[in-house]
């Protein structure tokens, strides 16, 4: 039983890392109805910028601030050069644009900072804690704490502030949002900048875990099942979806894996996501289309 709980909680904590990435997608999806394929590249860009600054002797918070500003500038460039040109186009056009964007951002990051792997040490040692007889990774607990704080912050931003209400209005009905005087372009800029901030946090935590390298941008693929399970439009959904993916893939690997030769972890989330698509296509927390009959 103890072993089961250990695997389970370990999976939940690892799932938090998926959630962090998925939140970035949710933000942009809510504001513009677009699955932003470039989110993974933004995570890489942020992590690479941050780690390179730290390696050049800039202290943690200084590097954090500079990277944050860089991400805001990146968001502004994307808004002016890409989104503004494609306004009113179909979602698939915008999706293709973000696909292209992901290669540009990725290439830009590596052109500026090089392609080698960087180690990132943020001063959390990874000795396990023992809680009620269960061993827990200290780093995972730290990551979970950060993610929790981030969710609380974003929850406040979206539910209580005028920007948040405007954002949800745009998600519901773009034309009506325009008609009441909401400035779409300003809102997009804010959302992409916030997604850049979330990407930075995710990039630092993932970078500290697996090293800052090109493959960071591939976590976009891990976020997909998280989003399908949790729902594309919900930050809570991204959290719960991440937890489900994290816990279930670890449990599947440990308990089902040996029966069929292992290696389940990598594809199990997709099977789960597919089941969700059949039963609950808008995910656990996604917005159901409200329709009166």
């Amino acid at each position, binding site marked *: 039983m103890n072993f089961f709980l250990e695997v389970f909680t370990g999976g939940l904590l690892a799932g938090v890392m998926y959630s962090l990435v998925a939140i970035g997608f949710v933000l942009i999806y809510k504001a513009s109805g677009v699955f932003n394929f470039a989110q993974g590249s933004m995570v890489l860009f942020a992590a690479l910028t941050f780690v390179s600054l730290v390696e050049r002797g800039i202290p943690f918070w200084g590097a954090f601030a500079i990277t944050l500003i860089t991400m805001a500038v990146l968001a502004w460039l994307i808004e002016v050069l890409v989104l503004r040109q494609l*306004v*009113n186009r179909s979602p698939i056009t915008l999706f293709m644009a973000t696909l292209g964007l992901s290669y540009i951002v990725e290439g830009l990051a590596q052109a500026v900072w090089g392609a080698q792997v960087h180690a990132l040490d943020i001063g959390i040692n990874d000795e396990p804690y023992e809680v009620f007889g269960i061993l827990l990774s200290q780093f995972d607990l730290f990551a979970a704490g950060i993610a929790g704080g981030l969710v609380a912050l974003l929850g406040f931003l979206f539910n209580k502030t*005028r920007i948040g*209400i*405007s954002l*949800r*209005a745009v*998600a*519901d*009905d*773009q*034309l*009506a*949002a*325009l*008609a*009441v*005087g*909401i*400035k779409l372009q300003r809102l997009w800029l804010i959302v992409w900048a916030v997604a850049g901030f979330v990407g930075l946090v995710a990039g630092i935590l993932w970078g500290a875990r697996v090293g800052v390298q090109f493959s960071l941008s591939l976590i976009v693929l891990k976020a997909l099942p998280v989003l399908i399970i949790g729902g594309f439009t919900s930050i809570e959904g991204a959290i719960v979806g991440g937890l489900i993916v994290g816990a279930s893939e670890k449990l599947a690997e440990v308990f089902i894996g040996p029966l069929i030769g292992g290696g389940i972890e990598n594809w199990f989330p997709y099977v789960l996501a597919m089941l969700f698509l059949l039963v609950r296509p808008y995910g656990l927390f996604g*917005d159901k289309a*409200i*329709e*009166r009959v």
Partner: protein
Amino acid sequence: MSQTSEKLNPAADAILQLDNIEVIYEKVIFAIKHISLQVGPQAIVALLGANGAGKSTILKAISGLIPAQRGEIVQGRIFYQGLDVTQATPAQLVSQGLVQVLEGRHCFGHLTVEENLLTGAFVRRPSAKVLSQELEKVYNFFPRLKLLRKNHAGYTSGGEQQMVAIGRALMANPKLILLDEPSMGLAPQIVEEIFEIVHQLQQTQGLSFLLAEQNATVALRYADYAYVLESGHITHHGDAQTIASSQALSDSYLGKQ
């Protein structure tokens, strides 16, 4: 009643004036042509015509929403309170008190009724205190909305959604409201109720309305002046009573006998 071939004289006191407006969608699709009209202060002006006559296009041309629908104003000028606003953005117009209520209500379904109303005021960046005062004002006009304020707008009835849409426009503290098909899909009794509120807003708040309606009978009872549209052109205009008693409407809906 007069024919539109004559040029309208720029009236100094008109709150809104359209001068020979032409709109084309997607660079090729012709929508409206030679549209000249005006709305006086504290007036209700009706735009009448069958489906596809161009009523909505005229309203969107005024409110700056045409570019969002891949259209453009290729000719003519629009004046609001004496200023040329032909190329103004919706946000600029709303903050100056010109708001459109879209056809089919377009409430934000996943937002509560109260959040819907709040969005209407954001463009003016009011303080929290002013915001809650405005909210109370709207609730005075629509007491039913106050009872529903925590409900998702998407789950309210059609009439209630129309109230939300008008209330949301009122939150911008407007001088002129462009109202597109307020009667669409509503029971006659509710339509009456909505028009009564429009009338009341005109009388007590001094608001002007430019009203696009297919339901000409109701619209003409409340309007001061009316324009009749047919495939993108104005064919007749005149006092509401004159239009109501003339042959113009049945001609435009049913074709000339």
